């Protein structure tokens, strides 16, 4: 039963990783941008959530109402003001610029909030649990997983059923021809980054309720997000959820064998899958 428990808890943890990954997957899919600052933006969202909930006396989940639009706005401005200028045939400039952005965000957070670990106070939600078939499940992990599924389903629906999703796919296929259809790619990319950071806002708040955080942890969240995206297959949103779950399960099972193995087990499974299936488990089939 302990092993079943580890697998179930790992699956739920995978929901959080899928939230880390979904925004990365989205912008890579639309504009082939690898956002090195993604993890630090998650941490920024957590701090924004902390400040909002403390200042307004809100529950951290209620702070989402403020943090989601704020992060989306930051995303749009960031894309149009900075990142669009780096996009082109060369993939190096966006990597360098987002790396620099990562350093800037980390240091700004250090200045603003110090290096002390912080935590959001979500009250009873943090410790609430319920029994399920002999297992004890935390309400928060289950909620996180459910939100991850809802976010991915929502993104999937947006991508394949709405005019905005059509614009994203067309721009991803061929930027010049999309522009001929009257799509301003600078604006389309801005919207994609806004959406990506809206998901980052959700990821940041759930991270901040689940564990304590400090300005330095962004890099680790970026790695987990990357691994989930790569395991699932680039550009496949449901694959990203599966990737997050595989990573989460590998970590909890690894920790079960030996607590020191938690992170290592996740990375090993990632490397193994990369070696066997370099394109991930469910690569997008391009014509």
């Amino acid at each position, binding site marked *: 039963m302990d092993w079943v428990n580890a697998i179930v808890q790992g699956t739920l943890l995978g929901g959080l990783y899928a939230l880390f990954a979904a925004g990365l997957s989205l912008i890579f899919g639309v504009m082939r941008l690898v956002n090195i600052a993604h993890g630090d933006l998650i941490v920024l969202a957590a701090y924004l959530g902390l400040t909002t909930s403390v200042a307004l006396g809100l529950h951290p989940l209620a702070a989402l109402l403020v943090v989601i639009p704020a992060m989306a706005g930051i995303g749009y401005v960031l894309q149009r003001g900075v990142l669009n200028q780096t996009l082109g045939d060369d993939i190096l400039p966006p990597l360098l610029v987002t790396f620099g952005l990562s350093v800037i965000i980390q240091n700004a957070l250090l200045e603003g909030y110090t290096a002390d670990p912080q935590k959001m106070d979500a009250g009873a939600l943090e410790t609430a649990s319920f029994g399920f078939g002999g297992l004890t499940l935390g309400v928060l992990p289950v909620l996180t997983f459910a939100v991850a599924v809802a976010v991915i389903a929502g993104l999937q629906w947006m991508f394949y059923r709405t*005019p905005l999703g*059509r*614009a994203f*796919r*067309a721009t*991803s*296929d*061929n930027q*010049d*021809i*999309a*522009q*001929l*259809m*009257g*799509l*301003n*790619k600078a604006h389309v990319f801005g919207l994609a980054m806004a959406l990506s950071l809206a998901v980052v806002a959700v990821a940041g708040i759930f991270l901040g309720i689940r564990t304590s955080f400090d300005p330095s942890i962004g890099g680790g969240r970026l790695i987990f997000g990357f691994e989930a995206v790569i395991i699932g297959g680039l550009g496949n949103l449901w694959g990203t959820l599966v990737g997050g779950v595989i990573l989460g399960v590998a970590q909890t099972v690894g920790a079960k064998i030996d607590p020191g193995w938690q992170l290592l087990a996740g990375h090993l499974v990632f490397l193994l899958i990369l070696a066997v299936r370099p394109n991930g488990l469910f690569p997008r089939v*391009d*014509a």
Partner: protein
Amino acid sequence: MHDPILGIRDLDAFYGDFQALYGLDLHVDAGEVLAIIGANGAGKTTLLRSIAGLMKNGAEQVRYRGQPIGALRADQIAALGIALVPEGRQLFPSLSVEENLMIGGRTGRKGPWSLDAVYNLFPILEERKAQASTSLSGGQQQMVAIGRALMANPDLILFDEISLGLAPIIIKDIYAALPGIVGEGMSAVIVEQDITKALSVSSRVYCLQEGRVSLEGASDALSREDISRAYFGIA
């Protein structure tokens, strides 16, 4: 003599250090079908890309309805009513047939063209509307590319080598559909390798050679010899 809907003056175009167009002058009259012929590399596609906003031009080098549009972005030019059917069709592979058509209509311009109108023109597309655009035959893909441009209800439509790589019978079908398309008060520019086809559907023709206009005239007034000379540059 009408006012031209499109006027091009002293247009240069570059790909890096390579110059593709040299001081080109050209105009399209409202409601006419203009053909542009010339050998490979003469600058025909570059000319259409310049008009559509995919090349960097000076504002005054391209004027549309009297407005300088040379420096506008392609999406702004599309909103003004210029649509391009690009060489090689260039459909969006991630989009279904119907989605390709719908994205063509996103400029929201009013006019006779809608999904229904395109399906009337090319009934086969309605049967295939849910399929991936890449699963269609070349001719059907060309119909989608034409339909996608029409969905924008353009006033000026640019066709780049619409017969390239298609079977002769398909080319005949597509050209048979042209009068129904351009008859609606639209102006058209047709870039075509097949000179006979180009002359038969157009009222005027320009021949390009190495980035310059080598011949211009009414399609029914030019002799074969004139065209050969302008086409190949044989004196």
